[in-house]
């Protein structure tokens, strides 16, 4: 069915085109919502759902001072894979996602994602699915330093 649609993307205006992944990157530099927003804007999009994941000051009652994100060399390839899967969800037109690595303080942004779709329900569903997949399927790791001086690898044991 995907093959059928992609073989003739412009033949029938009522036939929904496949969504396009316009941006997927992992980098140590700051990331912003404006960047993913700009990557998904287009005249056929009626709704854009976005997500920004920020460093909380608290993890189950313990004060957080710093998060250190690191990744495997394959992480950007895996990010692109999960993003392309989300771009194929119903109604999605354009999709963009950025993840930051390195040291992040409380309030800083670790991940941003944006999904433009014809209709808002589809945009929300795909953005949520994308962020879930980024969390569970991309080889990224998070090391937490707490305000009491202790530290831990999140989810490691």
């Amino acid at each position, binding site marked *: 069915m995907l093959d059928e649609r992609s073989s003739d993307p412009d033949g029938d205006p009522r036939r929904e085109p496949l969504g396009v992944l316009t941006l997927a990157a992992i980098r140590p530099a700051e990331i912003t919502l404006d960047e993913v927003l700009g990557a998904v804007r287009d005249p056929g999009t009626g709704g854009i759902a976005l997500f920004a994941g920020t460093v909380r000051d608290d993890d189950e009652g313990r004060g957080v001072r710093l998060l250190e994100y*690191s990744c*495997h060399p394959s992480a950007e390839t895996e990010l692109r894979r999960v993003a392309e899967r989300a771009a194929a969800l119903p109604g999605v037109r354009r999709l963009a996602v950025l993840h930051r690595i390195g040291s992040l303080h409380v309030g800083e942004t*670790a991940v941003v994602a944006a999904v433009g779709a014809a209709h808002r329900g589809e945009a929300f569903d795909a953005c949520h699915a994308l*962020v879930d997949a980024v969390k*569970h399927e991309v080889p*990224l790791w998070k090391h937490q330093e707490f305000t009491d001086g202790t530290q831990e*690898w999140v*989810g*490691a044991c």
Partner: protein
Amino acid sequence: MAEVTVRYWAAAKAAAGIAEESLEAATVGAAMATAAFRHGDALTAVLEHCSFLIDGLRASVETPLPEGAVVEVLPPFAGG
């Protein structure tokens, strides 16, 4: 038995105390048993939740090790 390179990532690297080492084993599971014996309880606890790559491809604990393979030890992912 194959001579392989084991590469530890993130929490596994912290628990092993090294990024990389050589060892001999027939399977991923056997390699991890040797690694746990060498590095102790902290690594043993982390290994329970890890996934593995052999030469960049996903592997299970039963996967046999080719000579010269690189075994990567990946703790649970925690993006976002």
